[in-house]
């Protein structure tokens, strides 16, 4: 993958030791789209150090560069200046499950295995085992249109596991789901990521979701996109969206977010 280019690339002076396996480190990362007068700065001078196995949620209003940040980490875009180090393979999960409609659930997972170079004979049993891990073993032979939105995202989650990545970027993966399904998916993502020891970068515009899931919530401000606040969330797990403490922490984050929006709109 493209990301390997960035793997363990030495940061300019600041961080002497290479990033650990599963870690992600951005040092002074700036991303500019376009050139000359039409250029827009999507991200400015972003520093972020994610340790292996950490669950980092990234919140911010639209246009704050959240998705750009993920694209950089996933290797879909290159940084303009600064350094980005990623310890290992990166998988990406989108808002839409993007399952291929001509394949069954198991075949969708098996395709990721194939493209990773897993031998033919091992693909089918492995794909079924991965679907078991997201509790969809019974639906292996169903096609995407026969599954609910939540089930489709679980297949996408199994496909992420199939990529054998150490870092997973999730770009509002639950944005299109109803509240009940979303709550259930929170548990699933938390459990699966925990079991696999995955590092997760989870983008959302829902502050409460960020508090519910994250070990750390990174608040991003817009124009240009940058980190305005980082909140360590030391609440015990399992958490629920409706926990009073989750609501309280979300409230203080929302206040910080509102302040940033007001500064730009007002």
């Amino acid at each position, binding site marked *: *993958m493209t990301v390997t280019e960035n793997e363990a690339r030495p940061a300019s002076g600041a961080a002497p030791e290479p990033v650990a396996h599963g870690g992600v480190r951005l040092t002074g990362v700036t991303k500019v789209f376009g050139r000359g007068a039409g250029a827009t700065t999507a991200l400015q001078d972003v520093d972020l150090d994610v340790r292996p196995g950490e669950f980092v949620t990234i919140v911010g209003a639209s246009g704050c560069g959240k998705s750009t940040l993920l694209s950089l980490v*996933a290797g*879909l875009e290159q940084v303009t200046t600064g350094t980005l180090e990623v310890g290992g393979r990166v*998988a*990406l999960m*989108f808002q*839409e499950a*993007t399952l*291929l*409609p*001509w394949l069954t659930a198991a075949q969708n997972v098996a*395709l*990721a295995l*194939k*493209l*990773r170079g897993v031998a033919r004979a091992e693909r089918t049993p492995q794909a079924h085992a991965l679907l078991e891990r997201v509790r969809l073993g019974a639906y292996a032979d169903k*096609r*995407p*249109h*026969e599954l609910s939105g939540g089930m489709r995202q679980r297949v996408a989650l199994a*496909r992420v596991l199939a*990529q054998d990545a150490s870092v997973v970027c999730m770009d509002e993966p639950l944005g299109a789901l109803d509240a009940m399904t979303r709550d259930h998916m929170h548990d699933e993502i938390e459990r699966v990521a925990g079991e696999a020891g995955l590092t997760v970068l989870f983008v959302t515009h829902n502050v409460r979701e960020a508090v519910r899931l994250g070990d750390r919530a990174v608040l991003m401000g817009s124009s240009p996109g940058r980190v305005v606040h980082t909140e360590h969330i030391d609440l015990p797990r399992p958490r629920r969206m409706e926990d009073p403490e989750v609501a309280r922490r979300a409230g203080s984050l929302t206040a910080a977010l509102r302040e940033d929006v007001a500064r730009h709109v007002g």
Partner: protein
Amino acid sequence: MSADERPAGTGPSGALATAIGAASGPGPIAPLTGAESGRSRALTQVWAGTWPKVGAVVAFVAIWQAVVLSGWRPEFVLPAPLTVAQTLGDLVREPEFWQAIGTTLRRALVGFAFAIAIGTVVGIAVSRFRPVRAAIGSLITGLQTMPSIVWFPLAILLFGLNEQAITFVVILGAAPSIANGIISGIDHVPPAFTRLGTVLGAGSVDLYRHFVIPAALPSYVAGLNQGWAFAWRSLLAGELLVIIEGKPSLGSRLSFAQDFNNAPELIAYMVVILVLGMLADTVFSSQSRRMRRRRGLAVD
């Protein structure tokens, strides 16, 4: 007349009876066993799809018979349906009839196979390389609108009155539709699929094989279907113009029937040509429906 109308009359009421039988038999609460209800539902569906067709054929034959009875044209020019049916019954016992069908189908398949190969390669090239699209993209659509019979004078000059001339025109008739099918299919592949391919680490070959081509398949099959229709038209036009001695084909039989003022045989061959065309279309559309159903797309 009344005998002809009976099947059409029983059609709708027959379907109604089947539908009532399926719905009222076990009552609304106790469901039918899976296999049983599946079979009766399938039968109801088949019948629901069949009786309008049967009705249309019956109506057409009835009108035909009425025109014949009106004496608008003498019977040796416009024969009655029954005469044509009898002629067809005689024809199927002649080996030449089957030879003619064999020759025509073989030509169609050979020409169509070449058209698939050429259309597919050209289509992929156009969708893949911008200069190729700029150069021949609109030409393909232009060729598609050109009646293929226009090519025959040139084909006969180039190849003579022989098989190659026919194959050449069949290919020219079918290939543009096939190319256009694959071009529009590839153009409309959702960007999310190609992005997914990149994220999963697919190289350009794997990207085409596992993401682009399967996503473009429904449009490609539609192009094949249309290509086949054009191939079939071009072929029959060609067989009327390019008659090769000692090689009976549907077109040459049609031409001879006209030469000998044999109207019943002429119409019998036309029926055969229509039925063969419809059979091919059934194959394509059933494939296309199966594919759409598997992908959860609307059928019909």
